[in-house]
């Protein structure tokens, strides 16, 4: 099935554009989450061997045994909640890596093709600037996160398997303790909703990155950040407010997905997503729609500029 998705059979411009994005951004889309997942697995296996199955959570160290003891003392509902939360939190390293991939893919999306002159090749084909830019938006905000969710799923199953092996030497049943308590479909659905809502809230920021990448003569990162920093400075000096920085920071850091407004915490325990319903409900906030309108305007600007600035 995968083979037919990634194979071109005749005229199908949008599929070809999406595949083109995959070929160009294989590292961001596939290699980065693969490597993070692989490294996390290796680290877990090594740490179990070296430290007698100690797990370090926020500077406290537990052995797996202690965790399992603690867990099995909990009632079924609490156990289930904790395991699902633990599995969700285990995806944070992948998500952080993928966040960087999204940012840098957006910043390079319309800059790299001008830097290596390949824009003349792309433009020699009957494809509109609108289609091209749409394929790049979808790559950054849909393809990269969706592939990442696939990897978090693999990692979560891996954790359950490792945990199951550990229970072999104990009196507990892996099925009761781990597998029956895990609601995998729900976990995946939640992750998809988190990612989708994160992408939508952050869309104006990614649109801004893509506009910067179409404008930049060199270093799109600076073009994206310096004007914002200056504006924020002016805002702070004259209006004593920090609306702009909050607007960008909160959206880019997923503040609307997490309960603590600081966004992605650096520690696992602070990874505390709001309930899925709350996250979906955040879409009634006018700020959500204002952000999408700003994103649409910025994308429109990027399309016009790519049409004009091809040389």
């Amino acid at each position, binding site marked *: 099935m995968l083979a037919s998705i990634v*194979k*071109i059979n*005749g*005229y*199908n*411009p949008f*599929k*070809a*554009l999406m*595949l*083109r994005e995959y*070929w*160009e951004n294989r590292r961001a889309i596939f290699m980065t989450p693969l490597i993070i997942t692989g490294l996390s697995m290796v680290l877990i296996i090594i740490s179990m061997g070296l430290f007698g199955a100690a797990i370090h959570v926020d500077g406290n160290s537990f052995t797996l045994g202690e965790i399992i003891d603690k867990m099995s003392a909990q009632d079924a509902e609490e156990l289930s909640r904790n395991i699902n939360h633990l599995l969700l939190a285990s995806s944070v390293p992948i998500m952080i890596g993928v966040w960087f991939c999204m940012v840098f893919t957006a910043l390079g999306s319309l800059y790299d*093709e001008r830097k*290596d*002159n*390949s*824009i*003349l*090749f792309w*433009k*020699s*084909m*009957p*494809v*509109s*600037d609108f*289609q091209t830019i749409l394929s790049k938006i979808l790559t950054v905000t849909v393809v990269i996160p969706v592939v990442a969710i696939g990897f978090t799923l693999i990692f979560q199953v891996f954790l359950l398997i490792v945990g199951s092996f550990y229970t072999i030497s104990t009196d507990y049943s892996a099925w009761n303790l781990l597998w029956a308590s895990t609601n995998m479909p729900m976990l995946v659905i939640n992750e998809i909703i988190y990612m989708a809502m994160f992408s939508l809230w952050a869309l104006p920021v990614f649109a801004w990155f893509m506009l910067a990448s179409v404008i930049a003569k060199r270093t799109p990162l600076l073009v994206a950040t310096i004007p914002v920093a200056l504006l924020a400075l002016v805002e702070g000096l004259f209006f004593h407010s920090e609306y702009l920085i909050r607007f960008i920071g909160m959206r880019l850091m997923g503040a609307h997905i997490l309960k603590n407004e600081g966004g992605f915490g650096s520690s696992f325990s602070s990874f505390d997503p709001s309930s899925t319903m709350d996250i979906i409900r955040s879409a009634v906030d006018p700020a959500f729609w204002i952000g999408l309108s700003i994103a649409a305007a910025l994308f429109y600007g990027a399309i016009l500029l790519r*049409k*004009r600035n*091809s*040389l």
Partner: protein
Amino acid sequence: MTNIITAHNLSKSYGSFQALKNVDLTIQKGQIVGIIGANGAGKTTLLNSILGLSAYDGDLDVLGFDPYSQRDEMMKEICFISDVATLPKWIKVSEAIDFVEGVHPSFNRQKALGFLAGTSVPLDKKVRQLSKGMVVQVHLALIMSIDAKILVLDEPTLGLDIIYRKKFYHQLLEDFFDEDRTILITTHQVDEIENILSQVVFIRDGELVLTADMEDISNQWMVLNPAPENNDAARALSPVSEQSLLGRTSFIFNGRSRAELAELGEVSRISLSDLFVTLMEGASS
């Protein structure tokens, strides 16, 4: 004859610099047109306008399309190779074929694979890993497998050695060109393409200096190498230019009859590079 490209009053400015000044141009189907000019004369600007890559002032009609606003539709009928560096470095040859097949309704994969089978280009390598000559072969194979009405080549052989350049033009004529297609070429190696051109456009400082059929040029423009004692008689016929080299003087004439000149010495047809130099110097003096 059908006009496939019509430009009227075409202008383009970059700030205060006028790259194209009120250009009028018509190009008909089935021609191979050389666009010849010095660096910065406006060749690429003219081609970019025709290709819809930049906005312009004035009227421009290419195959019935307005190139700038209808570029994506128009490009179904036009192929384009600018200088060799435009294939992205990260793409594999096989992926490039897939991509063009996906986005171009009149691309023929078998044809492209056929062209590439005749070369030593490996399909599973990335463009980055290929030699410059191979990259051009890949690009040419892709382009020639598209059933297009117009092919635009902007310095297509830049940086290639002579063997590849010869092959390039040979293949173009053998495998692509026919009376339903039109080719526009700019190049600095004028001598290499003059045998295949049917029409030339000389451009200087954004203006068209001369637009003519090759046949008319060889009827109009002649080079006379007179016997030394006839030099004064030749000068009396008001040549466009005179050049002395190793004791022999040659004169370039415009619009004189061959018979008249033949009385003074040996008459030959003018090479495009000589005509180019003559026109450029004539315009500046």
